């Protein structure tokens, strides 16, 4: 399994055209460890953009075979405003995702970012970095400008 555990640090500078936030439901902090950020390389197995929470499933090859990770994220509208739409990803796409690992040990993460090397498409869908609030920034007008400085994304 190509899995990099924290403290692989993601340096992100977020510039938002219009401030805004989607308050997460209480599940984020309860279920996912913000101090345990992981990086996964895999292929998209399923995309389910819905509300209140969307999921993107990633197949990850490991030494023990293939494991499907469930990446949980924001409701559909919030994702569309950030530039992640139903047309963004296709099953079989090779991607690198980052996110906060599920506390209960299941193969799950709260997605922070998705990067598709084939065309260098990327999107940031993580929590706020400044206040640590249980909210997500960057839902203004969809022109979410991202500078991800970490080499992994």
């Amino acid at each position, binding site marked *: 399994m190509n899995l990099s555990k924290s403290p692989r640090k993601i340096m992100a500078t977020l510039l938002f055209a219009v401030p*805004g*936030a989607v308050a997460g439901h209480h599940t984020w902090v309860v279920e996912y460890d913000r101090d345990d950020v992981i990086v996964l390389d895999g292929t998209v197995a399923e995309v389910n953009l819905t509300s209140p929470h969307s*999921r993107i499933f990633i197949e990850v090859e490991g030494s023990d075979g293939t494991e499907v990770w469930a990446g949980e994220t924001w409701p559909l*509208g919030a994702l569309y405003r950030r530039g992640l739409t139903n047309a963004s990803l296709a099953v079989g796409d090779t991607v690198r995702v980052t996110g906060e690992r599920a506390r209960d040990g299941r193969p799950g993460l709260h997605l922070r970012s998705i990067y598709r090397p084939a065309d260098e498409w990327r999107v940031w869908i993580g929590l706020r970095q400044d206040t640590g609030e249980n909210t997500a920034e960057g839902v203004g007008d969809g022109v979410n400008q991202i500078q991800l400085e970490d080499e992994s994304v």
Partner: protein
Amino acid sequence: MPTQTFVNRREGMRTQAFRNCFVPVLALLVVLPAYGQEPRTGRDQMTGVWIRASSGVDRPDISHVTAAGQAVMDAYDQATDNILRCLIDWGRLNTVSGFPMEMIVSENQVTILYEYNHSVRRVFLDQTEFPTDYPPSQVGYSIGHWEDDTLVVETRNLLAGWINMEGVAPYSDAAVATERFMLDREQRMLTVERSVEDPEYYSGPVTWTTEYAPAQFPVYPYDCTVGSYGSGLED
């Protein structure tokens, strides 16, 4: 008489030309001024899609919570939170950020369409008394009136709910919510002052103010799906 016939025909052509040209021009002169005109009042300009102008979540001061209110908070169990059943209460509709709301102002009603949970509120402007036989609901029953260009809304008939997530700031089904929608026409900013009075849970009103800006995107679908949360909570 050929000459007279010719004259008559020419007059007829002139009349027809007059009709063909003048009437449309006259119609344009009547209609055109309506285009590009500013709506007459701030009331008209409240119609539109609004999004919170500042980031974060409204977390009003609840230091004056009563023992009964504190007991409700202490007993909160997220596994039984209505939000997991796609039921969003009035309080959290108006503190959770990021989702736009569309306001439609008409003569006798203001309709507020929230993207969040696709919740709908109807504010009746032509009523002054709350009905006694209307069922309580997550969004309650709202009656409003205009004070100049400020929309003042009172909401009753609320089911008990929460102002914030994670079991913070409950209100009972006896709560009365008041909102004041104020539009800055020049800045195109909508300020909403909200207040909840619930003597059972608070010794005074719980208040917060939210500013909204015009949204530059559409209201997206929110087909709430029970069980779409992380695995831990629906177990």
